[in-house]
């Protein structure tokens, strides 16, 4: 392809390690700012622990609010990592190469952020460890019937799996950094981390096998995690709008929608911040844009079916809830914003090739999607609880308090900080994968047309 840039190995090393071995100007500033946000968030959380959950905007009956919304959101974001890298790796899509690590690392940090939201949410976080099986002296076990036990188990499995996944793919790159790092400790630390990588054929083979195995094993976990998150809502019969069988696939596809968007967003950011124009090419954004059209449309169909069935029940609480969501302020405005930002603005944009190939516009549209998907979770959770239902004696809404806003901002800062720190210490674009990509890249001439091709081993 015309836009494909063939780079030498040295150039790849130089470009991708510049951030790791050097220090861009903005880096400290950004880290400082994020730390400040995190500090205020933690301070707010400390205040919440000391005073009780009364400092949040939660009330009866809106007992779940920003934290759970945020939890679902981050779990959703985390899904793109595995989705992009495992599926594309298994299907051997060439364009995945520079994208995978961004996605995987985002998975890890957003999973951590999601887990921390559970901590913010519960009334007595210092007893949170009771959901894990430890308490044998009292003869008490956690209640494995509860989705809140399935949740942490699945999320922890996913976190461990995806960390391993990232790590396995990172080993050859750490070795590259090890060989180049200066100073007293850095080479030693990188040396330990890369597990004695020397790049022998056997090591490469093992690394490749491990990568494929982990991809295949992590995929079912990835599906299970968000299904389980959706069952936090769907299995409950107490809340009308939640008891719907479509929730598991609907959440998964929504998660992929928001997650892939987040990947595009972070790709654009990484491209600008670390000057990776040679690696994250317009056709990567193009590929992600096309993927997003499919994902967004599928997601919208699920959304449509969910709504149709909600109306189809003709149950008065269900109808009242939908009315609340669509026709009553403030949910009305949020709903409008949600529809526009998550589907009706970005998808028509992506239909144009010029938009898909422009990182700036992709950045903009994917930010919109993420705003929309955050609102989607909010609109599922809060109106569902605030609805007028039988025996509901307290009518009212929910307004997040400053504490909740600070804590939610903290999770965003946390993920951003995690990504920043990671990209400072490890190459954010897989060096070995890029080099491999350069090796297997070929072109075939058919008549006057030149078609991109890739080298496969003879089967």
């Amino acid at each position: 392809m015309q836009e494909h840039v063939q780079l030498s190995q040295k150039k790849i090393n130089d470009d991708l390690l510049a951030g790791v071995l050097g220090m861009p100007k903005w880096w400290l500033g950004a880290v400082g700012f994020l730390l400040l946000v995190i500090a205020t968030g933690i301070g707010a959380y400390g205040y919440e622990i000391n005073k009780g959950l009364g400092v949040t905007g939660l009330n009866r009956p809106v007992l779940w609010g920003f934290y759970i919304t945020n939890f679902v959101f981050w779990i959703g974001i985390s899904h793109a990592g595995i989705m992009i890298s495992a599926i594309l790796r298994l299907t051997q899509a060439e364009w995945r190469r520079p994208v995978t690590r961004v996605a995987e690392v985002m998975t890890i940090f957003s999973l951590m952020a999601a887990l921390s939201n559970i901590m913010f949410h519960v009334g007595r976080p210092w007893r949170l460890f009771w959901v894990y099986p430890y308490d044998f002296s009292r003869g008490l076990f956690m209640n494995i019937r509860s989705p809140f036990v399935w949740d942490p188990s699945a999320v922890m499995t996913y976190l461990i799996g995806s960390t391993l996944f990232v790590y396995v793919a990172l080993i050859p790159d750490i070795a590259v950094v090890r060989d180049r790092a200066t100073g007293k400790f850095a080479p030693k630390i990188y040396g330990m981390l890369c597990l004695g990588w020397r790049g022998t054929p056997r090591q490469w083979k093992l690394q490749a096998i491990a990568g494929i195995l982990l991809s295949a094993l992590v995929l079912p976990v990835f599906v299970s995690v968000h299904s389980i998150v959706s069952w936090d809502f769907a299995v409950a019969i107490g809340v009308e709008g939640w008891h719907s069988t479509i929730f598991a696939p609907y959440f998964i596809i929504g998660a992929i929608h928001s997650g892939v968007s987040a990947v595009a967003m972070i790709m654009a950011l990484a491209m600008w911040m670390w000057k990776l124009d040679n690696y994250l090419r317009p056709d990567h954004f193009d590929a992600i844009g096309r993927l997003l059209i499919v994902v967004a449309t599928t997601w919208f169909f699920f959304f449509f079916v969910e709504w149709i069935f909600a109306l189809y029940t003709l149950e008065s609480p269900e109808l009242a809830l939908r009315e609340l969501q669509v026709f009553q302020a403030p949910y009305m405005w949020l709903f409008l914003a949600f529809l526009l930002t998550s589907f009706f603005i970005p998808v028509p944009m992506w239909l144009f090739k010029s938009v898909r190939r422009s990182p700036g516009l992709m950045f903009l549209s994917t930010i919109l999607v993420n705003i929309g998907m955050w609102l989607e979770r909010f609109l599922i959770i809060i109106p569902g609880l605030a609805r007028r239902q039988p025996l509901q004696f307290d009518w009212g809404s929910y307004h997040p308090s400053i504490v909740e806003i600070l804590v939610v901002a903290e999770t965003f800062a946390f993920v951003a900080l995690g990504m920043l720190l990671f990209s400072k210490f490890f190459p954010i674009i897989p060096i070995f994968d890029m080099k491999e990509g350069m090796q297997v890249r070929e072109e075939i001439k058919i008549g006057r047309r030149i078609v991109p091709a890739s080298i496969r081993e003879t089967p």
Partner: protein
Amino acid sequence: MASHNASGHNEEHHAEGMYVPFTSQREVVNDLVTKHDKISDKWLSGVAAAGFLLVLGVIGFVMRVNDGVSDRMVWAYYAMMFSFILTTASAAPMVAIAPRLANAHWRRPVSRVAELWSAAGIFSLLLFIPMLWILPPLTDGRRSLWFYNSDDPFFSKVPVYSPHIWTTAALLSLAALGIMLLWLSAMPDLALMREHSTGWKQKWSARLSGRWIGTTEQWNMLHHRMGIVGALYFMMLVFVHYLVSTDFLMTLVPGWIDSLYPLTHAANSLQAGVATVILTMFFLRKFGGYEDYFTLDQFWAMSKLLFALSLLWFWFWFSSFNVFWYGKKPSEQAVLKYLMVGSYQPAFMAGFILSFVTPLLVMMWNRVRKSFWGPTIMSVAVLAGTFFDRLRLYVAAWSYPGVGDYRVDKHEIPFDSIPAANMPGVPDVLIVLGVIGGAVLFYLLAARLIPPVSIWEQKELMLYKLHKAYHRTEVLVLGKPR
């Protein structure tokens, strides 16, 4: 597979491996056109057998017509077979569409096999015609997704037959899109037949191939149109499953409000579609003489798809089961009892084991996936599983006596008692056989008209692959356009 020499194909290795062992496009064309021109005894006997089954089916149908159309229960097996054809044959073209959009090279010989199944879509349309009389209109007290509710001033204006109208329209467009897809993708081949065939085939292909001469513009247009028609076909397929699963199933059973089910229905049909194509591939390889084209690679790739879709089967099933089962609402429990553990338990268990458990346990082994017999046997299992799964749902829904229970209360009404299973009678068995025979007959006839292996896609592959020396070994270079 052994490496290729640039000088010519190696006779000993041509049975296995991914890429057809022909070196020039001419060889491919000659091979395929001759194969297609010849009328084999096997094909004739296939047509005879399928025709015989179809005749049996017509006899069964006539017997049923004598029972009249007022009792929905006697038509349960007929409805189920309609859905079975919709699930298997109409979903099969997806196997052509999705990998083509993903630009996978292994699909090249497979896509036409899959597309030809849209000929059976016409058959499903024929099957649907009697159902227009059998399906209860909305005045029967049944609700529809079109919100018929006599109390409501707005929805009471909805035509009483609106589900019929919608479903007919959707089925018609599905069949039309299928034929259009088949025609589009066959166009370059028809042009080839125009040049290379003789007799009636040449005439008919000359008429259908239009003015195809293979200019770049025509090719670009073709790819573009195939992409759009394929996407539309997929959307229409999902929509048809949505309509059929709601209007033919859920509205007939009170309390069955399972928002995931339309999608489960569609996902199951993709699984069954893949199984159908694998089975067809097997027959074409075994009896059609196409063993050069349907190689291990096709079976391997298709079996991966089948495996993934079998896992999806479980996920979709469990997602809705879990919500119903955990919630413990009496109305939902009653639905579970009726459809899963009650009268139709054997059918459910058969479906569950054949559609999910067996494929999971058997196909998790790569040695099974990468073989000819493994995927074939598994597709038979999956098709049988789909059959039983459709049986327990459609027969159960169509045999449920009191549709009218739905009308008054806004709360779902739990069953007072679980009705007994509706066992098939002689006409039902005949109908089952006849419908299967009819679909196969349509396929066989269509395969007579259009080559079952896409010639132009094989030729295209020739362009995109290249063997090349690389350091001390030889590698395959595969082009991916776009």
